């Protein structure tokens, strides 16, 4: 995903019900956390989420693999 200088990728997690687990639902590119929140909420509006959170992609640390987190999609990991 191309993004502008000064922007970071933010990963979005959400759950529809309190008893659900947070799921990774997508990514947005934003210049700051304030806009990341707005973009996440307005882009991934397919459900009425009980909770949605965002975090910069580069704040995640790979644990068992060398690849950067969020770069491997399910199909590629088979």
């Amino acid at each position, binding site marked *: 995903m191309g*993004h*502008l200088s*000064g*922007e970071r990728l933010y990963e979005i997690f959400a759950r529809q019900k309190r008893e659900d687990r947070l799921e990774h639902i997508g990514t*947005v*590119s*934003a*210049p*700051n956390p*304030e*806009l990341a*929140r*707005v*973009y996440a*909420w*307005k*882009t991934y*509006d397919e459900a009425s989420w009980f909770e949605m959170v965002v975090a910069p992609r580069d704040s995640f640390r790979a644990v068992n693999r060398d690849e950067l987190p969020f770069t491997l999609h399910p199909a590629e990991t088979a």
Partner: protein
Amino acid sequence: MSKTRTDVFKSPDALPEPVREALAAMLLSLADNKRVLGMRYGEWILGAPTLEAGIACSAMAQDEWGHARILYATLKDFEFEPTVLEHERPADEYLNSELLDDPATEWPDLLALNLLLDSALSVQVEAMTESSYEPILFKTRKLLEEERFHFEHGRGWAMRLGDMGAGRAALEAAFRKAIGPCLRWFGRPDSGFGRQLVDAGVVNADADELRRRWLERITPVLAEAGLELPETEGKAALEWEGWNADRRRAAEGALDEETLARVRGDRNRSMLMD
């Protein structure tokens, strides 16, 4: 007029006539501004600086049109015909701010509408969250929930452009033009219009108090973004020359014909079923 905390108005008929008129005018001003503001957001769906910003504009446009629709519908109780309000008025009967007469040509101009004008409308709506006019109570919550994100969008972009020299200068220039019309939009300090609504408990703040709340909301953002706008400091003298209390604006003029045709849906009129 006597006022107690137990006064609740369940319909427009229950309101004293001057209050009813003032409330209808205020609701129509909110509706028209939101209708046209939605159009201005919509014009940036294509061409916003990033895909995400375009999506946000699309969402904000939808929000504003939804709010306008809700507000036009409430005016039905005031014996306005929503179809006429939405589709049949000439440009000079729209109560939109002069800031909305023309499209926002540059992104900072849109941000001025987003952070400044949209917030002014929200401050007015918030003044009705405990309104004595019951039918409006149920409408304000959803509307303000959505508006939180509009404010945050304006704030996030102000911070972003504030970090860039050229961006900051462009934003200051765009905001400088918008501050006066926003401050005035709440009405003259001495207007009977606002006073009637406060006395009846329909709103909880007069024009000066609304101005103070609006400034309280936006000045921390301006500071965060490093913008210098003396217009927002102290009690800047407001120009009231040529003030039109009905349209809540000093400037003459109106929507251009093309925007008007799109706002009213003229080109699709033949598609309307009834």
